[in-house]
């Protein structure tokens, strides 16, 4: 901060000594220390905190820019990591809107002075509703995992049953989150996946659902490992037959091209909004959503806020407000439905902007493009000696499992060498799925050109042949 410390701090206007004195005088105090008289001396710190000296704005910018410059990012490199956070095309307008000072600094105003916040979130709900073909969508939750947790707990409350079934192909990290959210109220049980297709083993599902205490069957489309689960109708039918609720997690960017879960029996749909216009932000772009039919039984079990459209005093004007606010923990504390608070509203607004821009044709083309590009990449990689696809017979959306066992190299080793070539290789699955040896989850999206994919294949070929 050098010498320039006179006067008020730019962020704290009332540090001006004369103003402080005048205010103290007005309230009848003599020193600023008296303000903290309520805190006993024994609890006071009574020493300066040991923190670096304050920086002025220019020093701060240079310091932080310098720190961040130590990173290597996915736009300057070629990235094939997905696994729950995906690099997609982001229209410039998404950033323009979510960087607007109004939206960045708004919080919890009323439907009058914050009309725009209510309307944009209502519109986001409505746009996602079209995508998933459901009539109710919530104000965004934290992320897919937390949305899935809540969906499972909603099912538990609705059915009064204590268990949920999930395929073993669910992301192990996601399972950690779901388990923490569900413990001790709901028990998670895992259904085998078919070793050849990677899809849910329906025989095992039949066995496990027979226990009779299953509240929810949860599965994903596309799944964590990229496969398209085409047995959805059968799974939902089995769930319903056992009095359980069918919960489906989706990657919403697939839904321009793939059938929405409502069409194969889903009662609750959840997923992550991050692909719909959010930068990866080292994982800070995740945002969950939950959708159901417009059924009071389900609606009343949402913990989240739900914005509804209402008439106003003026004919033809729209207003917005909270639907069934009294179910929430704001209103009922521990008697409310789970808990609600700040979650990821800005990403909901952004997803709404994204869907408004893409429209039905954009979403449809995008889904097709992603599937074509990922299939092309998979073919190219599988053509490399020693490299194969683990579930090569099953249709996948944007991710696929590449099996490097026959190369004699570890994924860690391969990725390290790819990094030297400016490529972020797919996620190493050897820790989460040790039974498969050296496999990696590759993600290909619309942002990859043919040249990018050919470059990956060429780089891998060099590494594998070396």
């Amino acid at each position: 901060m050098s010498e320039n410390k006179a006067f008020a701090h730019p962020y704290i206007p009332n540090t001006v000594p004369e103003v402080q004195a005048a205010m103290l005088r007005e309230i009848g105090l003599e020193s600023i220390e008296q303000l903290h008289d309520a805190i006993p001396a024994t609890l006071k710190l009574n020493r300066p905190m040991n923190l670096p000296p304050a920086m002025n704005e220019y020093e701060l910018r240079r310091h932080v820019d310098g720190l961040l410059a130590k990173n290597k990012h996915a736009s300057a490199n070629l990235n094939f990591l997905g696994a729950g956070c995906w690099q997609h095309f982001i229209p410039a307008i998404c950033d323009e809107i979510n960087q607007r000072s109004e939206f960045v600094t708004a919080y919890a105003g009323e439907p009058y002075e914050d009309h725009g916040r209510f309307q944009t979130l209502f519109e986001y709900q409505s746009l996602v509703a079209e995508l998933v073909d459901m009539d109710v969508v919530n104000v965004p939750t934290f992320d897919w995992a937390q949305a899935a947790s809540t969906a499972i707990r909603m099912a538990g409350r609705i059915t009064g049953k204590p268990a949920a079934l999930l395929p073993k192909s669910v992301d192990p990290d996601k399972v950690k989150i779901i388990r923490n959210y569900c413990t001790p109220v709901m028990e998670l049980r895992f259904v085998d996946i078919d070793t050849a297709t990677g899809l849910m083993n329906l025989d095992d599902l039949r066995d496990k659902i027979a226990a009779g205490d299953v509240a929810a069957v949860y599965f994903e489309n596309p799944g964590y490992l990229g496969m398209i689960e085409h047995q959805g109708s059968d799974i939902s039918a089995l769930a319903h037959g056992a009095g359980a609720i069918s919960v489906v997690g989706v990657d919403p960017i697939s839904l321009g091209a793939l059938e929405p879960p409502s069409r194969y029996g889903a009662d609750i749909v959840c997923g992550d909004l991050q692909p719909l216009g959010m930068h990866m932000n080292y994982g800070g772009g995740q945002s969950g959503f939950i959708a159901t039919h417009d059924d009071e039984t389900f609606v009343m079990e949402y913990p989240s806020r739900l914005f509804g459209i209402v008439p106003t005093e003026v004919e033809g004007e729209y207003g917005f407000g909270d639907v069934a606010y009294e179910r929430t923990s704001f209103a009922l504390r521990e008697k409310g439905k789970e808990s609600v608070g700040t979650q990821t509203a800005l990403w909901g607004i952004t997803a709404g902007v994204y869907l408004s821009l893409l429209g039905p044709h954009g979403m449809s083309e995008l889904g097709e493009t992603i599937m074509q590009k990922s299939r092309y990449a998979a073919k190219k990689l599988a053509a490399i000696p020693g490299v194969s696809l683990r579930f090569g017979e099953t249709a996948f959306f944007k991710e696929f499992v590449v099996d490097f066992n026959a190369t004699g190299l570890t994924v860690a080793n391969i990725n390290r060498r790819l990094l030297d070539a400016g490529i972020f290789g797919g996620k190493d699955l050897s820790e989460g799925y040790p039974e498969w040896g050296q496999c990696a989850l590759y993600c290909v999206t619309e942002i990859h050109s043919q040249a990018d994919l050919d470059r990956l294949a060429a780089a891998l070929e060099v590494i594998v042949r070396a």
Partner: protein
Amino acid sequence: WDEPVIFELHRPGERGVVPPGTDAGIAAEVGAASGWVPSAMRRSEAPKLPEIGQAKVLRHYLRLSQETLGSDFNVEIGQGTCTMKYIPRINEMLIRTPNMMELHPLQDVDTVQGMLEVFHKLDLAMREISGMDAFSFQPSSGTQALLAMASIVRAYHDSRGEGEQRDEIITTIFSHPSQAATAAVKGYKIITLHPDEDGFPDLEKLKQAISPRTAGFVVANPEDTGIYNHRIKEFTDVVHAAGGVCFYDQANANGLLGITRAKEAGFDMCFFNLHKTFAAPHMCGGPATGALGVTEQFRRFLPGPLVEYDGNRYTLSEQPEESIGKVRSFHGVAQTVLRAYAWIMALGADGLKDVARIAVLNNNYLYHKILQIRGASAPYIKGRRLEQVRYSWKQLTDETGVTTEDITRRMCDFGLHYWTSHHPYIVPQPFTLEPTESYSKEDLDEYIHALEHISEEAYTNPNIVKTAPHNSTVHRNDESSLDDPKLWCITWRAYLKKAKAD
């Protein structure tokens, strides 16, 4: 603006943006996806999204942004307990770089050394501020941090074989509702303590409440009344003696920075809202960060991975099996971690202490002035408020019929936020103001003046208050449908089916 709902802008054939397409070479190689995607899984009917040209989409959302009252635009002291302070613009600029935005959370740690350094340095700063020994920035709001703390309480007692036995968590009525709600999510029975007549948490009631079933005690201090419980160490001692864990909701920490810490008050865990207290923005309600700190004893239960530094290189280390696992994907909201770090660096130790001092000065100035307004009062003990106060319009309502909800709507006409506080309404006709350190004396006077004006209206022309808003973007809502399953419309498609059908 009288902006339609986005679906009404639909014109067939228009496009907002053309997404990247498939290279001809790829299409030639693989053909159309219909060739391999199972037919049952091909979308049978296109989603009914609107088709709108780019300029119209932009215009629509820009107009709606102008109809949103961000804290940048007003004297934002009326969302009490929520610490809406000045959001330094430099911090918003710092996060808008591909070196932050385009990082994938699973990148090799060697490619994210700068990012990990930020996490680690913020961890060190938060330790100094709180006295705790380790922080996780994974929880992405205060609620999620509270849930994580309740989860740690459970994991801790489970690890000692007392998980079944200890099934009660004690809190206070003036703590945020999320404390009770998140503990209940973790299966706990909630015991809520009501204050003594001065508004302090009641030590005698705590002593009556504790038992071998006590798993933990969670409290804010100061509570949402702004009253600081000066006997807090006695409370934590009592709970510890009973084998319970003490965890601290530091959402109201703005008046405490550099003054007093969680450690000395005897807490095992605490969290801070980096949005709010550390000047990250609220973004209409997230994404945010509840920075979760614990003493060494509880470190192994934190959600993982944690950032570690060996003096040379930053790494991500997985947590042991007994940890609660994870509460949010990946590493939390990294942008907000960076914002909070930048804010601390812009203030230093002296600046943080000035934050606490001026926040309390501003609040006491406001408190002094509000009590002079006809019809306003502040229940419980006189004075001793730190950074906020929960006030009451009981007298005004009794004398004029104007309620705190009426005033909410009328304040919109002045371009100001005003919030009536959480249920349950222990304080009658409540309102909660928290001026923070960001506002100048003139700013506070402007807010006070608006309340004075409304009070005067209530006594002279109450109808103008009761029929507000008069000067807002929209007129008064007809809220009758919102609690009726037959009428509520949570999406545009539901509206078309239900309301338009009429």
